[in-house]
């Protein structure tokens, strides 16, 4: 095992974390709560992708596209069931927390009931699972490369949507001040709905990648906390923060697992997060959403 190879693995794992953390950074910036149901959407979409890849023999790209659409619809459904009414009644932030964590647990347990707690693994999409560079000095998994490529493309598309389109302007306006945005003629319901759709798309794709990387099991949704940690490190509710945080987390996790083993790496990352929160609660990028009177 080479250090450069570890770094490459870390970056591609980090790119998946970036996808997860972008998925709820989007929701956080608009509705100002952490969407724990994102993990549930991820898991259900990962199973969906598994089914269409196994049963119908789709390749990787069609699987990704179909799963992304499925995830988007599922996530919008979650919004309608869980948060639509709360939003209309100006519910307390605590209720959003409870609703989202309940929805996440519920989706995971629905998967546990339907598929029981056995492990499934995705079919191999590639004939040759490894690239060899420089006559075999580095071996890079093809899935890692594709993960990196797809995530980068998605991130660029998301950046384009946020900074160049009309929808993006509405999202940014809503994240600054929802009341004023409403007065300026932005249809808040539609924008929130679209945010959930986009975050579902991101979540679904990260779910498929996690399924390919590890195995499928109902508790895969816990991975959402990696994305959460990533956005804390980067700065909550901040898109560039999610980018930095995800990459940093992926890298440090791969290195820690290589050097100290997987059991301790969870604890070390927890301690690092705490230290980070004590000394720099606003994250790397430095914006913080402070409470106003």
């Amino acid at each position, binding site marked *: 095992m080479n250090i450069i190879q570890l770094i490459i693995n870390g970056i591609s794992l980090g790119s998946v974390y970036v996808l997860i953390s972008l998925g709820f950074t989007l929701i956080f910036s608009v509705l100002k709560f952490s969407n724990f149901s994102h993990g549930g959407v991820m898991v259900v979409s990962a199973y969906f992708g598994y089914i269409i890849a196994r049963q119908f023999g789709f390749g990787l790209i069609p699987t990704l596209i179909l799963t992304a659409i499925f995830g988007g619809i599922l996530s919008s459904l979650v919004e309608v069931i*869980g948060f639509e009414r709360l939003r209309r009644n100006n519910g307390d932030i*605590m209720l959003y927390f409870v609703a989202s964590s309940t929805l996440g647990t519920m989706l995971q*347990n629905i998967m546990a009931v339907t598929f029981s707690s056995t492990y499934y693994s995705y079919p191999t999409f590639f004939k040759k699972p490894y690239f060899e560079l420089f006559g075999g000095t580095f071996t890079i998994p093809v899935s890692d490369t594709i993960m990196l490529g797809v995530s980068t493309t998605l991130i660029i598309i998301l950046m384009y949507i946020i900074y160049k389109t009309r929808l993006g302007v509405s999202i940014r306006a809503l994240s600054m001040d929802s009341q004023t945005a409403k007065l300026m003629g932005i249809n808040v319901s539609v924008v929130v709905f679209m945010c959930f759709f986009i975050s579902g798309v991101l979540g679904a794709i990260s779910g498929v990648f996690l399924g390919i990387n590890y195995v499928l099991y109902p508790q895969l949704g816990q991975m959402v906390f990696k994305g959460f*940690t990533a956005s804390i490190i980067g700065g909550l509710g901040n898109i560039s923060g999610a980018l930095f945080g995800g990459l940093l987390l992926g890298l440090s996790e791969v290195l820690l697992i290589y050097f100290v083993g997987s059991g301790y790496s969870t604890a070390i990352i927890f301690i690092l*997060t*705490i230290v980070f929160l004590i000394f720099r609660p606003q994250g790397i990028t430095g914006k913080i*959403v402070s409470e106003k009177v």
Partner: protein
Amino acid sequence: MSFYSSLFISICITSIGIMSMYLLLGLSGIFSMGQAAFMSIGAYAAGLMAIKTGLPMIINIPIAIAVGMLVAGFIAIPVIKLRRDYVALVTVSFGEAIVALLNKLTNLTGGSLGLNGIPRSMNMPLAIVIVAVCLYMVLNFKKSKYGRQCLAVKSDEISAAAMGINVRNSKMLVFVLAGGFTALAGAMWAYLTTYVEPNSFGQKLSVEWIIMTFIGGSNSLSGSIMSAVILKILPEILRFADSMRIIIYSVIVLIIINFRPQGLLGERELSDLFRWLKKKVMGSHQKEQKGGNS
């Protein structure tokens, strides 16, 4: 030990856990998603003391509570400074980290096999006494100066601080207290089942507790404890699969959040019912007297 008495003790344990959730969620608005980790700390502390030193339960349980409070004090240092979202994250990853550590430290904790051979010293009268003492403490805490400060902090941190309440201190106090209660629940659990393993205290248990607290109404102590008792007994009668049970609870919670966000009981407590009944009885009595006079 018969099925009913062990069910009864496990209800008592859950009620103590729910009291800690009530302190956090209902009184001070701290959204802890890893409270089950403190239960595992209490269970392991009591279990290790019992196995390694052979001391009686009466000494081990206070030690377990102290360990729980100590760890809660450390976790509280970042928790009291942060926004609610961050608190949820810190507590979640704390729970994950504890489960991972307990699995990893095989020499001390027996890894995923768990700890075996804790004496079964928990019995029904003792459980009732412990629950009664806890309930008394929580009720008085709610009525005390500190409890009222916590309520103020919950409804608005900034104006509470402007009124001269030390927000951080009151949050710290509640977090440490809740850690102690949960560790007590864990220690009781260890002495009930004689066996502890790390994976029974995962995030699932924490979410289950949140759900129980919210169904009854997170602002009402009697409401949340009643819903804990009911939700603990129902699956024993109906015999659901474990995952099915969680799905049904989740549906109930979603309905309650959407249509009755304050929970089933709202802010009402059992004592209000007694007061109302007393008034009713006294009132009719007075009327009768008046009727007799005229």
